[in-house]
């Protein structure tokens, strides 16, 4: 397995990455090149079909690029064994995908088990994670997913993805199916968790407000191409093109770094804050 704890900057690089699905007449992802630093929370935003999911799934090799190279912490991901690679990357999707036949605790324990953690360590980690996503362990650890609300399921999905403290988290519209109030709470928790551990997050959303609230940098995509990749402040101040202007307009007037998001976080999570200065690497699996 790849050494995921040695800090290497940048965390993730895309070099001319292109994806064309078989029989498609266009590129779903078209010549994307960019670099993401260790500890960033990059939000990927764009209209439906702009290639966000495709870009994300190439990182954990659920899809293979047609051309180009993806480098994770200095290693070309195509050189790694995909199964091993994925164990070091957290993955959360909108439909959550919890195992219905496993309890909350068993769901969270899946990757620790794959990595042969002993049961004491796994048990302690389950409690720690449930606390992190604000679910009472005594109440929820032994429940089955069917006995949870949508918001609770997504908390468990998040806890499961965080189980072995992966260096990289991929999140594909994780809060897309959740009501506005619950979503707001989950967004704040995600900011808190990210601030506390400073792992690298790649977060897909189609909600420009969510993208601006959460992202240290925002990656705007359209037609498989990067339209702009900058901090929320920079984008608001100088939209790169007509598409970005329209996207901002569609979200109304109040788009911008969100003040309330940073209230309860220690590291200063307002958008545009430089990353890598946190000393809060306190919780490890």
């Amino acid at each position, binding site marked *: 397995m790849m050494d995921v704890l040695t800090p290497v900057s940048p965390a993730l690089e895309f070099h001319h990455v292109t994806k064309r699905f078989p029989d498609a007449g266009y590129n779903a992802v078209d010549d994307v090149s960019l670099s993401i630093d260790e500890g960033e929370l990059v939000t990927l935003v764009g209209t439906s079909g702009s290639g966000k999911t495709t870009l994300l799934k190439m990182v954990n090799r659920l899809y293979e690029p047609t051309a180009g190279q993806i480098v994770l912490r200095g290693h070309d991901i195509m050189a790694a064994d995909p199964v091993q690679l994925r164990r070091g990357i957290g993955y959360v999707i909108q439909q959550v*995908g919890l195992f219905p036949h496993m309890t909350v605790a068993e769901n969270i324990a899946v990757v620790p088990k794959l990595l042969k953690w002993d049961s004491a360590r796994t048990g302690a980690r389950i409690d720690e994670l449930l606390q992190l996503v604000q679910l009472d362990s005594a109440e929820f650890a032994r429940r089955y997913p069917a006995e949870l609300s949508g918001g609770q399921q997504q908390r468990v999905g998040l806890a499961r993805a965080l189980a072995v403290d992966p260096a990289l988290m991929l999140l594909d519209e994780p809060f897309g199916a959740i009501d506005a109030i619950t979503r707001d709470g989950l967004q704040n928790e995600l900011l808190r968790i990210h601030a506390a551990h400073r792992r690298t997050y790649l977060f897909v959303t189609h909600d420009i407000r969510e993208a601006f609230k959460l992202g240290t940098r925002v990656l705007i995509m359209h037609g498989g191409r990067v339209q702009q990749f900058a901090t929320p402040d920079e984008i608001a101040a100088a939209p790169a093109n007509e598409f970005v202007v329209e996207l901002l307009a569609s979200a109304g007037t109040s788009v911008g770094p969100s003040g309330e998001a940073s209230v309860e976080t220690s590291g200063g999570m307002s958008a545009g804050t430089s990353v890598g200065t946190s000393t809060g690497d306190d919780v490890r699996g």
Partner: protein
Amino acid sequence: MGSRGDLLVQIAQYFATHGSEYVHAVVQHVAITLAATGAAAVVAVPAGIACSRFPRVRGFVTGVFSTLRIIPSLAVLFLCISLIGVGEAPAILALALLAAPPLLINTTLGFSRVPGAVLETATGMGMGVARIFFTVKVPLAAPLIIAGLKTALVEVIASATLAAYIGAGGLGTIIFTGLGLLRSDLLMIGGVSVAGLSLVVSALISWTEKRLLPWEA
């Protein structure tokens, strides 16, 4: 034929004089049922898995088995006799043909109903193909497979009565003897035993289901 009181006396007499014969018939009935259902499962479950994976196989195989389902078990039995003669083997073959459709259809459904999102996150978390099959797909398909097994067993238990007709023994022996001798006590014993066996097997499977599948509310 006698009154109800006579019937009870006759039944008691039968158990007193033919007790071991009765036990033998029950054991034989169960053995034939298990052999037929087991043989069917060995073929139908893998075929169902193949069907859930390859849509082309699915069209063909489910077509064959649906047709098979329409043919009455008695006709299948006669066909088997004409092909491989009388005795236990043709009886088991005929009953296996009867048990296969519910097993195949439910296995196919069970495996194709595993949610795509679950498989996607399983792969995304770094579970290998074999691990996903055994620890995710099989348990999630299990409720429907078990339901198919229950249907198959109940059908086979009832139809195995006919097996006696071609010399395979079982509870049918008592019933056919009763028919031949016009003895309602024997008909009663045979009929009730077949029904009872069916109920016991159903209950056993339901109990196993609850043990095995606690997440199925």
